[in-house]
């Protein structure tokens, strides 16, 4: 488990980083927290000739909360998100999700942008960003462009990132005051990637028979090649009181999710667990 040898560069600016990426093309790989990348090198699953360590580029880390939007720099660590009072106040979904990501030592180093670029289908941040309808800020020599999280994830470990492009930040619209968030996942051990998880969001308002859920958003992790936005289940739950919303969403979920088995859990069990979590998350939103 020794990585093949590689060259290492630590640019001090975005421009320098773009130069390096351009010069080395496919042979270069961006290094952020290294918590996913280094493992793949050690296991010789990839062998880039050059690692371009972006952690020396100023301005890419940090959280800036405006009234209706929160901007999270790509190099912001998982831990920084977890401990941010602003995130706790504006985006409780992220605060809830953070503690499920790996272990503290990894959260201290791993980055928000790295997790999105990695696009592990069982990772927490991608599903949260999809649920929150976040927008990724991507930068390259050609300039900046913005891509919705809902279109950024294209397949298994596959994103809309183009060669030479970096994730620089993520902008997340702050849901309204009466929105509630619930993040739940099932993992065999604390810190493991989840078997299945759900990032849920809804407005809980007064309805005819108790609190009704509107603007329901359900994004799942661990049950597809990408984070899965369950549009059918969301539509089925929309406007219903919690108990009905849960039953309706669970019944519709088959149309959204086609999980494949992982090493320890069959597709059928994953589907079952996704339904269980759906019920629990919607109940929590209405509680």
């Amino acid at each position, binding site marked *: *488990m*020794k*990585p*093949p*040898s590689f060259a290492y560069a630590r640019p001090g600016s975005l421009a320098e980083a773009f130069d390096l990426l351009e010069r080395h093309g496919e042979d270069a790989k961006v290094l952020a927290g290294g918590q996913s990348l280094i493992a793949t090198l050690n*296991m*010789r699953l990839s062998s880039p000739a050059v690692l371009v360590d972006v952690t020396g580029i100023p301005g890419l880390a940090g959280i800036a909360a405006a009234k209706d939007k929160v901007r999270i720099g790509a190099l912001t660590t998982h831990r920084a998100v977890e401990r941010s009072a602003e995130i706790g106040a504006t985006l409780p979904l992220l605060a809830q999700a953070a503690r499920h990501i790996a272990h503290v030592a990894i959260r201290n180093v791993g980055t928000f942008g790295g997790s999105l670029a990695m696009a592990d289908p069982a990772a927490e941040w991608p599903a949260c960003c999809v649920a929150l309808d976040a927008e990724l800020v991507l930068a390259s020599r050609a300039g900046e462009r913005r891509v919705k999280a809902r279109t950024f994830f294209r397949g298994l470990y596959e994103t809309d990132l183009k060669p030479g492009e970096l994730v620089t930040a993520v902008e997340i619209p702050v849901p309204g005051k009466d929105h509630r968030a619930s993040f739940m996942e*099932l993992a*065999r*051990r*604390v*810190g*493991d*990637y989840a*078997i299945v998880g759900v990032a849920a969001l809804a407005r809980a308002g007064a309805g005819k028979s108790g609190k009704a859920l509107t603007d329901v958003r359900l994004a799942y992790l661990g049950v597809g090649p990408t984070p899965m936005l369950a549009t059918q289940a969301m539509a089925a739950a929309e406007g219903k009181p919690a108990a009905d919303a849960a039953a309706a969403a669970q019944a519709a979920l088959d149309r959204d999710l086609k999980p494949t088995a992982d*090493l*320890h*859990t*069959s597709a*059928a*069990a994953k589907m*079952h*667990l996704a339904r*269980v979590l759906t019920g629990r998350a919607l109940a929590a939103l209405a509680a």
Partner: protein
Amino acid sequence: MNARAELPLHAPGTQVDKGYIGQSVPRENAKRLLQGRGSYIDDLRFPRLAHVVFFRSPHAHARIRKLDLAQAARQPGVIACFDGRAVAEYCTPWIAVLGHLKGIKSAPQHPIAIERACWQGEAVAAIVAESRAQGEDALAHVEAEWEELPALTDMRESLAGKYVIHPDLGDNVCFKRELVTEGFDAAWAKADIVVEESYKFGRHTGVTLEGRAILADYNAADHSLTVYHNTQAPHMMQDIFSRHLGIPEGNVRVVCKDVGGSFGIKVHVYADEMATAAISVMLRRPVKFVADRLESFLTDIHAREHEVTVRLACTKGGDIIGFDLDDLTAIGPYSVYPRTSGIEGNQVVNLTGGPYRHKHYRAKMHVVFTNKNLTCQYRAVGHPIAMALTEAIVDRAAAEIGLDPAEFRRRNLIPDDAYPYSEFPSGIKFERLSHHQCLDKLLALMDYKELRAEQAALRKQGIHRGIGLAAMIEVTNPSPAFYGVGGARISAQDGATLRLEPTGMLTVMCSVTEQGQGTDGIFAQIAASAVGVTLDKVRVITGDTGVTPYGGGTWASRGAGIGGEAVLQAGRALRSNMLDVAAAILSADKAELDIVGNEVVNKLTQEPKLSLAELGRIAYFRPDTLPPKFQSELTVTRHYTPRDYAFTFTNGIQASLVEVDPDTGFVKLLKHWCVEDCGTVINPMLVDEQIRGGVVQGIGAALFEECLYGPDGQLLNGNMADYLVPMCGEMPDIVVAHVETPTKQSALGAKGAGEAGTAGAPGAVMNAINDALAPLGARVTVQPATPERILEALGKV
């Protein structure tokens, strides 16, 4: 973790010298290890050190059509490349059988496979390079062509002989054993109730912090081989290197540095380690191999993997009449050298029904070959299987009769006054056990009645808690009956040398080794107590065949009971010799003197007479001042072998409290208790942590750990992300308490404690889960009990 329920006090009647025995003193080496100043094999730097990496079979079973190492040999830093034939010139193959396991058979195994690979991960070529990284780079340049052969992965297909892995052996049965007690059928026919159930135990492995590691340094000048090796049994390995490499035993020295955990994984002969030693001879230079994590999963021995059907017959009053066992276990393509892979199944036959006083027993057991990694002895060998299946079927019987599981056990556990007990139907003999004392203590400790009431109340609220009990016995302090009688050159005896230094310090050299479990610490306690010095005066040296007495090492819960007794006897003898010197210096009567707190004192008044530093100074530097002809003897060696019983059994009982989420199949471990009897408790803190660590590994087996193989024999989860070792986040508080029934075979009275936790925990947890599931009409009988398996049992997937 909880405070201990009760401080285990020194057992009355034990013949040990008081002092530190029974005290939770911190061990000396902990500071060094925790500060990162331990020194492991991989820390060694030698001039001309070469690193070997192995090209391993990607197939579970395949003939090597072509193996071309020429390109690899040309890569930067590569020193040499070898195939199996080249290495076989320097190292003879082995066949792992034992005389007392009648009929056991296996095929010759070479350090590096020749012609054919029999499991995915078996080494088929070695590349020696200036660095490990260069070696790994060169691996990509090995050209191999394979003819894939059918891979046998299913043990039933193996038993049925779908293919025969080693055609010369005739079939795939490595070992089988059948046993039936006299009058079995007649007794069985009288049973009111017979319960039957089948269980499956997954394959798992012992994940050590430090991987297997060896640095072999052959010196052609004097035809000597020094092997730095993180083995548990340095003298056994000295003998094996000597015989298989053709180097006189006296020229082979095995040195263990600090060892980062072993659990039985490091007590075996590994082909790649033998190859490393052979390559050192071939290249006449030091060669190092450290298994990385991926190699560890592919080649460190695996364990367990049983499919068992067990029946229990009892009267309607609840008295067990007997057990009927049919066990099938698979071990990979070779029996592991030199202990064999027949021991685990043999233990299951020996130990099933272990805690109980039934009279009848029938057992059938088959050990078969498969094309997966080899399995062999891992912590608690056979016990977790025997205890779990016994305790699960006992719970079934109790439920059938309508008796509380604790009550059913009380009825059937061998009475505490029935010892020595030689009526156990498998033939094993018990010197003295304390099942009933342990049961009573456990029930009080956990407040069993209160827990049952709480469980009933919570069930009404839809909360499914379960309480599981598992009584157990454990093989410890084995006599030569374990291996020696079968022809294995494995010492059942251990020795200790104690030397008083001129400054009054005490050096202890013992043949039992330290793997991180604290053996050195308890030897210091025993030596200090026996001689009469304070702990800070004692230094302990273990793990060096060039230095310590000859002995067996660390395995089968024998370190404290056997090595500790040797230290105690050596300490007593040294103390007597020291008093001779003191009497000579002081012109006093030896009988009036004693040694307390580093001083020779007057026995009656405790008045200090002479410091040990002064005694040492005179004995070593001014013996001219001593009476003529007086010769001091301040180095003493003593040995100890248990002889009266084949094994010194211990006993205990565990309980697990869990909550099962019937919607998700997730099990939450709420609490765990263990009351065990390891005889004299030398260091309560160390024993408790041994128990806790053992329980955690047992919980791993029950809930998490499993080596998953595809139908083609590929290991699917050989890494730390996909192989789930138990971690602290899921572990419950583990409450530990002791009953002390010292063995009368030794003066120390210590039995083993290292494996008890692992032996009982899988049964306790499985019973707790099934207790929680009982109102839902479901049972899980497969370990590990994954959420998926629990959901299946509940009919939800």
